[in-house]
């Protein structure tokens, strides 16, 4: 579900953490009512994995939201005569020639900064859509079973049979004006099946658990059982798959751009830049290294975040 | 069929090999596990021995170290995280902990075999029972497929599986729990080991089937003159088949005794508490005696006697000094063979 991707709400009753003895169990004995998310957040703040990945993601999000803060150079304008494939100058922090120039004399630094928005939007957008709809389909199929399971699972299978990239190419080919929304929609349209399958499996294992039975015996309704008992115990694999998939969506966008089916030539995106760089890799690897490096770091940060959140949501691993 | 005739005489005990005397001697065995939360001290100096034809029951609750000891003997501990910092496991005069992996593999299955609690998960679901039984003979003794299958049928007959010939090609799920446990026993018996370790062999079975399986195990043990280590938490099962008992608590042996003695006159407060806390079938008492408190956390074993926080008799010495396993004697000092207790107050416990 979408809010799984966010950091959990910060409703920490700070009072509780008074005893400095350090033992987590002891510290938990006093204090106000706690929630799973509150505890997860408290736990997350102490994890280096989470702090590092969180800061990285924050930085990437900041760059995507306000590229103007990081450079004032227009990523589209280049000076062929002066800067043709100029090498990077690693000591010139935040300056145009920090990462060097590309074949058209454009500042790679400026392009990396401005490209972040499209790439991150596609990656995040597709992941959110896919987790929501795929998760919903998987949850309903898994929980209600029977006819609904047969129906939804067969639909999932049909979509699963469509090759992801080929399908995206066919769909995108139908659009002439391909902006972020179109690309996000096309990838999400084809990508939800994986999450649906993972979610369905996780829900089926969870719904037979004794504690679900116990909740039913208390007279709990379907909504409570689904959202209090089944979902929290079934999301862990979904979070992992979703965060890993996020990277592949960003990569898919770049592949599509490379094939001429992604963003148009005037749009800036890491994918488009990576594909442009391929012709210069041998003599000017910097044209590839920086956009590709940014892409890798972003993807890695999300995967690390997913791992940290998954562990924090499992009280047994704390 | 000629094959059956040819193999008919095999189950007779092997001759020419010493089948008597001391089989296994575990000396001061320690096992610990290094985990994220610290060092789990699962076994803290266990001593026991088994002779040929003898049944030793190792009794303990979960976390007492009874299964870990068995796994250490079998050499199937996960290392790491497991570690054996100290101790000897002497099998027929040789310390197995000093052997190479290859040497130990030769002993495993051939000389020492193990029966697990959960027969269903110990059998491979996609291979027929006959194939799995025959595997031993193909791998260890280089038999042909046909010979191995004949041996498998024979083994199934030995553990009294009805219609063995027809069922040899069936898969594990087609057998009931009791039958699967018989198959496990057949597998352990296949190479006629000197020693069998049975880890809760009947816990997963129903009472009426439990009795069948225990009887079978006892009968086969007599027939082959094997040593048997029976690991269990069930005081009732032990009473039926064991010769001697070792009671474990928090990785130590707290009491050893011949089976009848233990039930009549326990010499350790833990044993006494256990005996008092099980309801009896033939009498209806009032409130059950309950040992207070919880089994110890192996990360933080209490100082002194590990049982002291739960013990009704505990005094200051129990909180500071670890009681050694000392011989237990009659009131007048007469020797009680095979009895030992690791309690500072064993005299008071046994003699009231």
């Amino acid at each position, binding site marked *: 579900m979408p809010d799984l991707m966010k950091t959990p709400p910060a409703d920490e009753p700070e009072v509780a953490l008074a005893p400095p003895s350090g033992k987590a169990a002891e510290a938990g004995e006093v204090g106000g009512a706690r929630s799973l998310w509150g505890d997860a957040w408290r736990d997350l703040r102490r994890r280096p994995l989470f702090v590092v990945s969180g800061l990285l993601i924050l930085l990437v999000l900041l760059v995507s939201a306000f590229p103007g803060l990081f450079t004032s150079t227009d990523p589209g304008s280049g000076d062929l005569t002066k800067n043709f494939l100029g090498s990077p100058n690693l000591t010139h922090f935040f300056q145009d020639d920090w990462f060097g120039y590309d074949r058209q004399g454009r500042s790679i630094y400026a392009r990396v900064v401005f490209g972040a928005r499209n790439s991150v939007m596609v990656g995040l957008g597709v992941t959110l859509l896919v987790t929501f709809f795929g998760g919903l389909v998987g949850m309903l199929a898994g929980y209600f079973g029977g006819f609904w399971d047969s129906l939804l699972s067969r639909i999932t299978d049909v979509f699963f049979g469509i090759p992801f990239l080929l399908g995206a190419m066919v769909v995108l080919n139908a659009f002439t004006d391909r902006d972020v929304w179109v690309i996000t929609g096309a990838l999400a349209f084809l990508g939800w099946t994986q999450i649906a399958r993972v979610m369905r499996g996780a829900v089926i294992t969870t719904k037979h658990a004794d504690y679900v039975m116990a909740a039913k015996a208390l007279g709990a309704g379907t909504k409570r059982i689904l959202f209090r008992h089944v979902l929290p115990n079934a999301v862990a694999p979904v979070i992992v798959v979703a965060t890993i998939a996020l990277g592949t969506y960003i990569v898919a966008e770049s592949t599509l751009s490379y094939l001429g089916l992604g963003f148009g030539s005037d749009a800036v995106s890491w994918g488009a830049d990576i594909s442009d760089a391929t012709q210069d890799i041998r003599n000017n690897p910097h044209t590839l290294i920086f956009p590709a490096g940014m892409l890798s770091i972003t993807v890695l940060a999300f995967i690390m975040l997913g791992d940290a959140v998954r562990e924090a949501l499992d009280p047994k691993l704390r | 069929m000629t094959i059956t005739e040819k193999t008919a005489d095999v189950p007779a005990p092997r001759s020419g090999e010493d089948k008597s005397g001391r089989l296994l001697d575990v000396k001061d065995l320690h096992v610990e596990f290094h985990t994220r939360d610290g060092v789990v001290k699962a076994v803290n100096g266990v001593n026991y021995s088994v002779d040929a034809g003898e049944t030793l029951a190792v009794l303990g609750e979960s976390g007492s170290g009874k299964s870990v000891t068995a796994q250490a003997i079998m050499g199937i501990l996960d290392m790491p995280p497991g570690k054996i910092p100290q101790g000897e496991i002497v099998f027929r005069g040789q310390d197995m902990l000093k052997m190479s992996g290859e040497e130990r593999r030769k002993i495993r299955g051939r000389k020492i075999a193990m029966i697990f609690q959960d027969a269903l998960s110990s059998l491979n679901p996609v291979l027929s029972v006959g194939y799995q039984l025959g595997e031993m003979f193909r791998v260890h003794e280089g038999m042909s497929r046909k010979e191995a299958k004949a041996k498998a049928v024979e083994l199934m007959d030995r553990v009294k599986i009805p219609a063995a010939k027809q069922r040899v090609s069936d898969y594990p799920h087609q057998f009931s729990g009791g039958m699967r446990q018989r198959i496990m026993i057949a597998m352990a018996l296949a190479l006629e080991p000197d020693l069998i370790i049975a880890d809760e062999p009947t816990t997963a079975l129903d009472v009426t*089937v439990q009795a069948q399986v225990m009887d079978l195990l006892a009968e086969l043990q007599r027939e082959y003159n094997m040593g048997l280590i029976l690991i269990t*938490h069930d005081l009732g099962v032990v009473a039926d088949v064991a010769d001697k008992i070792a009671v474990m608590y928090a990785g130590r042996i707290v009491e050893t005794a011949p089976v009848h003695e233990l039930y009549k006159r326990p010499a350790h407060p833990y044993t006494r508490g256990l005996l008092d806390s099980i*309801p009896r*079938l033939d009498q*209806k008492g009032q409130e059950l005696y*309950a040992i207070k408190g919880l*089994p110890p956390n192996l990360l933080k074993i209490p100082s002194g006697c590990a049982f002291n926080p739960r013990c009704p008799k505990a005094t200051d010495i129990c909180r500071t000094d670890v009681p050694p396993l000392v011989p237990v004697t009659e009131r007048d000092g007469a020797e009680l063979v095979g009895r030992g207790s690791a309690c500072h107050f064993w005299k008071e416990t046994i003699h009231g």
Partner: protein
Amino acid sequence: MAEVSKNDEPTDVTPNVTEVEAVDAETPEDAVAVIEAPAERGEPILQVRNLVKHFPLTQGVIVKRQVGAVKAVDGISFDLYQGETLGIVGESGCGKSTVAKLLMTLEQATAGEVFYKGQDITKLSGRALKAVRRNIQMVFQDPYTSLNPRMTVGDIIGEPFEIHPEVAPKGDRRRKVQELLDVVGLNPEYINRYPHQFSGGQRQRIGIARGLALNPEIIICDEPVSALDVSVQAQVINLMEKLQDEFNLSYLFIAHDLSIVRHISDRVGVMYLGKMAEIGSDEQIYDHPTHPYTQALLSAVPVPDPEAREGRERIILTGDVPSPANPPSGCRFRTRCWKAQDRCAEEIPLLAIPERFVGKDTPAAHESACHFAEEKDVVHAA
């Protein structure tokens, strides 16, 4: 391919699982049970009549065809009185856990009725069912899987109040949860801990606290101590007995451990393959069993006393429990019974006081479903 029902049993498989009305009593068991109700106990709080649960076996991927049924529970009747403990014993597969689920309406009965204070709860749904659930609660077998690992103890024990907000006003709940923790012998300060931070016995106490939260009249205990260590079992049993006195609870205590059942129960029912083989007071069943299955079961129980053991007769049954999908005709126990005769294969023995004991003032005069019932003490040393 297999027909709908292969066995020669006169059970009428109801054509539609949801339609449970049209089943008339197939055996006179219920009539007998009513007559036998001891007068001094007053009205039973729970009356179970001819309860049947068949799990259909189906074939086919798209069009599901029923090819048979697992007869998990096949016509069970008994009463539960206020403040008493009725023990149900039997081996795995005898249907005792299914009975628990049926009484909790966690499974839909194929046929039969369960009357709680005169109201048939198998036909209830929605609000009415929810109201009944307040009064019938359950303690589960496995304390490691019956508590949601992602909820704190406070949330787990407090959940009943969220589902039934009328029981405790919102501001009061936390205090109530702490009281419950105290009642079951746990430190009320543990309210913010997670289940995995507790040992098995403590977790079972949490499960019991959850069951108690709504002040139920009946608690159905499905093997509540079988997953616990021996030294902890006694603690939990003692706690359950204490709570029974304190809150005047009725327990249906389902277990396979006959010693524990004897200890806690006032009356005991022995189940075999979906049917009740014998039912009576604990003394009647343990000291004067008349059904061969009960006798075999009792004699097989390992007794932690080698000396008492030696004087006892042991009956070792051959073979395993037959599959409930295809139970033997006539008496279900006949395939393993040493007394079986032709009559046993043809005629289903009814659960009733055996003819030879009718009207006699002997503890053997209790209901037993055997054509050849006779008394045999297998528990005490000869």
